Each structure stands twice: as structure tokens, then as C-alpha cells.
């Protein structure tokens, strides 16, 4: 038993993986449509943005920072595509330029944090509202149709059933490899866990932070454009904070600590799957969607409670 607790406490993803399996079995038993092709596609399309933005948030949470603007970047990037396209720019260039603006937003967030020493919570919250306001002003608060939804480009970018899921998996694997396999990932964890110590060891902690803000803005914008292409329309009043909070929820229930130095991309992916399974499972078994938010909150509290206790058990085991 002590060994089992030891293994579970060492691997933050184990708890949420067990929860995920239990939920999938439960909903599958309650309603066979849960594991139908169509329903799985729907779930994957719901999970994809959460997993991608969550993977970006993992980098920042590993640094003991957060990006509250990531959800709004996700929603704003397709608007940049539309606005640039109005000047007659081809779709490919519109996407590229839009992503360039996203990189600029990430760099701006990073600069606010490392240069002006504004806490990331405040800096990115401000940028979130600036972007939300910009979209409302630029669009005159009028919904519009997304461009690039046809042909091969549209299929690859989001129209095909699995395209958004494949993009999400690809991006999540890249972020996982970046965090776990590269010098940059090691420096990210070092900066988050002991910033002064990492700096004293020669790690360029400011550069690490700025690059992480750029990465999350880039991937949030990218998946935002693909998601908009799949949906086909843009709503200027959509709140970006919701998407960001779902992503952070996926991180937290997946086992990433808000205090820095302890992050798991795999756990975040499983966390995103759990959120998708819950949302879809509730719909398919006929439970009111209102219950979803309540259950989401309960899952966060439960997962955090279990993780904290397992962390203490792990400390006692090591001692």
C-alpha cells in the first residue's frame, strides 16, 4: 500500500487518469451513444483548444506565472485574420500575419512582467480586456463569418473531423518535448522552482519568461484560428476568460502546481479530456448543462485535495 501511494504521489497524472477512466466507463455504461464516432469527434473538438491553451499555461505555471489573456488571444487571432483580409491579403498571409501579432502580444506580456515587474496575473488580465475591447470596437459588435473554411486549406485547418484534434495532439506533444526534453524546458522548471538560484547558475531567467509568454500566445492564436475555421463564424462578445479558465482547470486537475517548478503536460492533456468527457457526458445522459459548472468546481476541489494529500504522503515517504 505504501508503495502504491509512493508511485501515485510521484506521478501527478495518475490520479486524474484514474478519474478519467472512471468517467469514461460511467458515461459509456449510461449511454452507448457516448462512444459513437460522432460523439467522440464532438468531444475531441471541444477538448482540443483546452488542451492546447492548457499546454501553454503549463509552461507559465511551471514558471510560477500565469497568462490570463491566452483565451482572449485564442478568440482574437481569427479576428486579426478577418481584419487583415479586408485589405485584400491572401488567407495564408492573413494567418501568418495574425500569428505574428500574437507573438507580439506574447512578447508584450513578457516585457510587462520582466521589465516593468508587473505581476503576470495583472499584466495579462489587462491585456485580456484590451484585446476583448479591441474586438468589440473593430467589429462594431457584429458577428461575421470566418474565411478560409473551404478547400484543402479549410480541411487541414479545421473543417475535417479530426484536423483540430490532430493539431492539438501535435502541439501538445511539441510542448511536452520542449518541457521534458530540451535545455529550454529544464531552464523553465529551474526558473519557476528557484528563480534566484537559476539566475545565479547563469540561466537567463528573463529571456526564459518572455519566450514562454510568446509560445502560449502563438499556440493560442493558432488553435483559435483553426477553431474559428471549423465553426465558421466569429462572435465578438464571446468571453475569452472562459476558455482560459478551462485550460487552467485542466492544468490544475492534471497535477500542475500553481507555485512553479512542478508541471505536467500529459496531466493537462488528461485534464482536458476529463473536462470534455464531463461536458459531453452530462449532455448525452440528459443532465442539465447547469450542473456541469458545479461538477467542474467539485472536480477541481477533489483533485487538488487528493494531490495535496499525496504530496504530503510523498514527503513523508522521502523523509
Amino acid at each position, binding site marked *: 500500500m505504501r508503495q502504491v501511494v509512493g508511485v501515485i504521489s510521484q506521478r501527478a497524472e495518475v490520479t486524474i487518469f484514474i478519474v478519467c477512466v472512471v468517467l469514461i466507463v460511467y458515461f459509456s455504461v449510461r449511454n452507448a451513444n457516448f462512444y459513437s464516432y460522432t460523439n467522440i469527434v464532438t468531444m475531441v473538438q471541444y477538448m482540443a483548444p483546452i488542451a492546447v491553451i492548457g499546454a501553454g499555461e503549463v509552461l507559465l505555471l511551471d514558471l510560477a506565472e500565469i497568462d490570463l489573456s491566452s483565451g482572449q488571444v485564442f478568440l482574437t487571432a481569427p479576428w486579426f485574420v478577418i481584419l487583415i483580409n479586408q485589405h485584400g491579403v491572401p488567407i495564408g498571409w492573413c494567418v501568418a500575419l495574425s500569428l505574428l501579432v500574437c507573438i507580439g502580444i506574447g512578447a508584450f506580456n513578457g516585457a510587462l512582467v520582466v521589465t516593468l515587474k508587473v505581476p503576470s496575473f495583472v499584466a495579462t488580465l489587462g491585456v485580456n480586456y484590451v484585446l476583448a475591447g479591441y474586438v468589440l470596437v473593430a467589429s462594431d459588435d457584429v458577428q461575421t463569418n470566418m474565411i478560409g473554411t473551404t478547400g484543402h486549406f479549410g480541411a487541414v485547418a479545421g473543417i475535417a473531423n479530426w484536423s483540430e484534434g490532430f493539431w492539438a495532439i501535435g502541439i501538445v506533444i511539441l510542448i511536452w518535448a520542449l518541457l521534458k526534453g530540451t*535545455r529550454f524546458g529544464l531552464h523553465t522548471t529551474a526558473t519557476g522552482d528557484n528563480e534566484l538560484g537559476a539566475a545565479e547558475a547563469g540561466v537567463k531567467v528573463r529571456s526564459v519568461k518572455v519566450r514562454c509568454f510568446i509560445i502560449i500566445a502563438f499556440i493560442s492564436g493558432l488553435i483559435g484560428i483553426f477553431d474559428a475555421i471549423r465553426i465558421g463564424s466569429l462572435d465578438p462578445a464571446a468571453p475569452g476568460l472562459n476558455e482560459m479558465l478551462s485550460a487552467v482547470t485542466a492544468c490544475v486537475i492534471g497535477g500542475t502546481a500553481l507555485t512553479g*517548478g512542478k508541471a505536467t503536460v500529459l496531466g493537462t492533456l488528461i485534464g482536458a479530456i476529463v473536462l470534455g468527457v464531463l461536458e459531453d457526458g452530462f449532455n448525452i445522459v440528459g443532465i442539465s448543462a447547469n450542473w456541469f459548472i458545479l461538477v467542474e468546481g467539485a472536480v477541481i476541489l477533489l483533485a487538488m485535495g487528493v494531490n495535496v494529500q499525496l504530496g504530503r504522503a510523498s514527503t513523508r515517504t522521502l523523509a
Partner: protein
Amino acid sequence: MSGALEADLPEPGNNVGNDTSPPRSSLVGAVKSSHPHEDLVLRAEKIKKSFGALVVLRGVDIRLRRGEVLGLVGDNGSGKSTLMKILCGFQRQDDGEVFVNEKHVDFHSVQDARNEGIEAVYQDLALVPQLTVYQNLFLNRELTRFGKIGWLKNTSMRRLSEQYLAAIGVKVASVDALVGSLSGGQRQAIALARATRQDAEILLLDEPLAAMGAKESALVINLVKDLSQNHGVSMIIIDHNYTHLFELCDRLNILQEGYITYDQEISDTSIGDLNELMISEYRRRVTIGQSELKA
């Protein structure tokens, strides 16, 4: 010995404010100038450093001979750690010059100092608890492949870490153990091992034995002695424990009010002498404080 020391003691004096001359303290007169034939591996002259209105270093002259272990003593807040951070490139001095092997150097980063063979072990150890032993040993000097991608060569780093720790006699359960799970002595040993892994010529140690028990201290003391005697590493050690300093060091400096005010070979002084000096200095400061309060 005590008599020789007393001969070095002029009348106590005051040294507050922005006076740039050395303090007329009880310790002035004990500083020796550099011998022209000394084989100096590190020399710093007239190092000055301020943080806003707070003047920390007013003109520090310090020298380290090849293969020597130099102890640096001083009150809390006297600027010992600041001096260390300047010498290892973590902070820049406002004024003054640093020479390594008599070559003038200008450090803009830790890496600059590292390139000159200077490594530091800080008071906070600069270790990352959530990283493993081998990841900490190679932090910022990782072995990588694929160029700019920087893909970590974990197997090589593990193997080299095991070899190096064995070579310097440091025992840990596994190089895959998280540093946060190690004892204080083991962490200090890992910090020392990291500093010396790249064949450092000069090692700067900021309170390497702070808050450590006798058994753990022995581990670090033996390692420091081994590095000095068998690997030819020159060191500056900050420590408040005179017993440790007398066991480890060849020479002692006292940093006081922004200057080096005392410089003696260990063989020419004793713990009693040093205690006597520090107590008289403490009394002098209390007297000054009381005079200022009355004024």
C-alpha cells in the same frame, strides 16, 4: 601571538557616512599589502558598490594566492556576499578592477566569470529542488544535441555525474534523486561538485556550512580540503564559524564598513585573537551608536 596583534591595533575611530577613506577601526593596520612576488590567481582593487543610498563596498582590496584558501569574515550586512557576487559576475561593481591571473577582466555575467575559471557556491546554494542531482550538476552547462533545439543528452549527463561524484567522494542514493529530497550536507556537496565540475580554478563559497550538523559539516569540510589540496583549487570562503575557518583556511580577511580591515595568515592568529578583535569592534560600534542616540 596576541601581543603581535595588539601592536596592530590603533585607537578606535568612527567611520560613518560617505567618507571614502578606510575606517579608523580597531582592526586597521593589520592589512598587508600584496607582495610583488606573490602568485596571485585573483586580485580585486578598490571595489565599490552601492544599492541606492546604501553604500555597501567602499573600496575593497582583496587578493587570493594560487592554491590558497582565504577566509572572509565580517558582520551581517558588511558586504561579504555582495563582494562574492561581484567576483563571480552575478553583480557588477560600481567602480574598481578585478584581475584573474593578473589579467584585467570585466564580468558582465556569471558566464563571463565562469569562462575565467571562477565558480561560486551561494548561500542559497542556487540549486533547484524539483530537478534531479544530475540536472542540477549540469544546470546551464547541459550536454545537448541538435544545435539550437538543445535536446538534452540525459544518459551522458547521468553517467558523467555518477563518475564525477564518485571521483570527489560524494555519495547520493541516485543521480536521478530530486535535490529537494537530499539532506543539507548532500545539497551543499552537490553545489560544490557543480562548481568544481568544470575544472574551476577559483571557488567562491558563501557560508558553505551554514545550519549544518557536525556530520554533514565533516562531509563538506573534507570535500573542500580535497579540492584545495589535491585539485589545486583556490578558494574564498565566507563563514561565521571561526572553528571551521581555522580548520579550512590559510589566511583570514575581515570585511568591515566596506573595506578589508584585517589580513593575517592563519598561522599568525588564533580564534581567541579573532574573538577579541570582533568583540572590541562590537563595543566600538555600540559606543558610536550610543553617542549618536545622545546627539
